[in-house]
């Protein structure tokens, strides 16, 4: 099994498996200008609905995620596009992005959208040309950061797709790599996560995170227990919350948890990290992307087409019918596990080999289709 991959070296010591020009809007007001500059030169827009009318933890999270996307190793250069009067200034974001060319465009300073577009497209073209001259170099697998996620889950997820991904995750960690799992879908097994943590402090952070989620649900007059497992889960044979959560946790294998990350925070070392990823699917994977994962491995039973800007998303299903019907969105079929035609270790090796191919530049299905969802979940309400 090969254990090296070709990647772009960055000035801050990171390596990127893609060489995107990222064009990031600091506020929703500059989103369309951002998108049009990106479209004109084949760059990658990172747009969202936040950036103003936010305070406290909510504002901090948006800022952290935007800086995270700008600092992303798969972005070789960045243009930050702001309006000028928003809460998160484009300079404040740009100054925190290290090791690559970063430019700022502010619509109110330049004097209107037409001038900003003209200036932006000229600038973006020069930056794209410079990026295209960079060459890949050979690096060891220990440099790779993988995010794992399940969505549109069903009966096959906990049997095939997740355990197979778990094998790949464990292998990558044994090679010295890094994996990020989100807290989503793990309600009901936080005690087991806590016991896998390498220190009591990390265990406490994990349990407190789940406590806060349950307290917030209570404040809204609801409980996770009333809806979990769902009627669909029960039809699929899932009896308890812990059982459901264990099926989801299987995608991160058996490694110890070395740290707890805020949404969009980058891992500070190797091994398995858990990130608070409250929100719906797109918000969850956006948080993992902002944390700097090179690749995101996504398991599904029912099928799911979402992708990300900057980060190739690799889909894996254990449901053979879903694979056949959604072949344009799904990269790996782990249903032979259920049919008894493949062992889970072989499926894990197959996934790891695919991850390395994608790291080397092979495109994923949704990457080719250009599916690039990005969202920053809110904390509390807008002011």
């Amino acid at each position, binding site marked *: 099994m090969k254990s090296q991959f070709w990647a772009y070296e960055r000035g801050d010591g990171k390596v990127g498996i893609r060489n995107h020009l990222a064009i990031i809007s600091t506020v929703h007001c500059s989103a369309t200008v951002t998108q049009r500059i990106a479209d004109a030169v084949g760059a990658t827009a990172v747009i969202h609905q936040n950036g103003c009318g936010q305070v406290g933890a909510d504002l901090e999270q948006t800022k952290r995620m935007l800086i995270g996307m700008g600092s992303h190793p798969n972005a070789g250069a960045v243009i930050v596009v702001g309006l000028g009067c928003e809460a998160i200034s484009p300079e404040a974001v740009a100054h925190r992005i290290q090791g690559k060319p970063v430019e700022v465009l502010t619509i109110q300073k330049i004097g209107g959208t037409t001038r900003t577009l003209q200036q932006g497209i000229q600038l973006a073209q020069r930056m794209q040309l410079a990026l295209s001259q960079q060459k890949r170099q050979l690096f060891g697998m220990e440099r790779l950061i993988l995010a794992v996620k399940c969505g549109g889950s069903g*009966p*096959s997820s906990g*049997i095939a797709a997740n*355990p197979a991904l778990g094998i790949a995750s464990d292998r990558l960690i044994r090679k010295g790599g890094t994996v990020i799992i989100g807290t989503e879908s793990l309600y*009901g*097994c*936080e*005690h*087991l996560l*806590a*016991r896998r943590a390498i220190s*009591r402090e990390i*265990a*406490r952070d994990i*349990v*407190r995170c789940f*406590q806060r989620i*349950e*307290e917030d649900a209570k404040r809204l007059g609801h409980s996770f*227990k009333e809806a979990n497992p769902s009627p669909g889960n*029960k039809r*699929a*044979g899932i*009896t*308890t*919350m*812990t*059982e459901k959560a*264990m*099926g989801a946790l*299987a995608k991160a294998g058996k490694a110890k948890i070395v740290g707890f990350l805020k949404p969009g925070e980058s891992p500070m070392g190797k091994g398995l990290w858990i990130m608070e990823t409250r929100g719906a699917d797109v918000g969850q994977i956006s948080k993992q992307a902002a944390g700097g994962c090179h690749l995101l491995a996504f398991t599904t039973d029912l099928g799911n087409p979402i992708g990300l800007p900057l980060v190739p998303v690799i889909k894996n299903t254990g449901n053979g019918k879903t694979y056949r019907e959604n072949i344009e969105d799904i990269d790996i079929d782990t249903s032979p596990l*259920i049919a*008894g035609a493949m062992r889970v270790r072989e499926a894990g090796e197959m996934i790891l080999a695919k991850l390395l191919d994608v790291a080397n530049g092979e495109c994923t299905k949704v990457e080719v289709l250009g599916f690039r969802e990005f969202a920053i979940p809110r904390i509390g309400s807008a002011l």
Partner: protein
Amino acid sequence: MAMKGRFLIHHPKDNVAVILSESMEKGDTIEIGSRTIPLRASIPFGHKVAIREIPKGGYAVKYGQKIGKAKRDIHPGEHVHCHNLEDVVDELRAEALKKAKIEIEDWRGKAS
């Protein structure tokens, strides 16, 4: 004729197996090593079958972890689901955290 079904045992400690055959009828069997366990009910794909005795108040173990508590005695070959297995997530959480000596506020906001 009784069918021999395909199944999955996630972890050696598990006392339940997951049915992988499309659907299995009462009287169909699963073979674990030299043991043959006849199913006591029909069990659909993805659902659980007991492969050992789980006494009332004992735990069903899947993925090597306790997932719920038996509401009554469950015998090998029985379908294990909501009718005979209770969700005791709060109890499992408290027990596991105590064992790991992780002192945290409990879920009602009091210090444990």
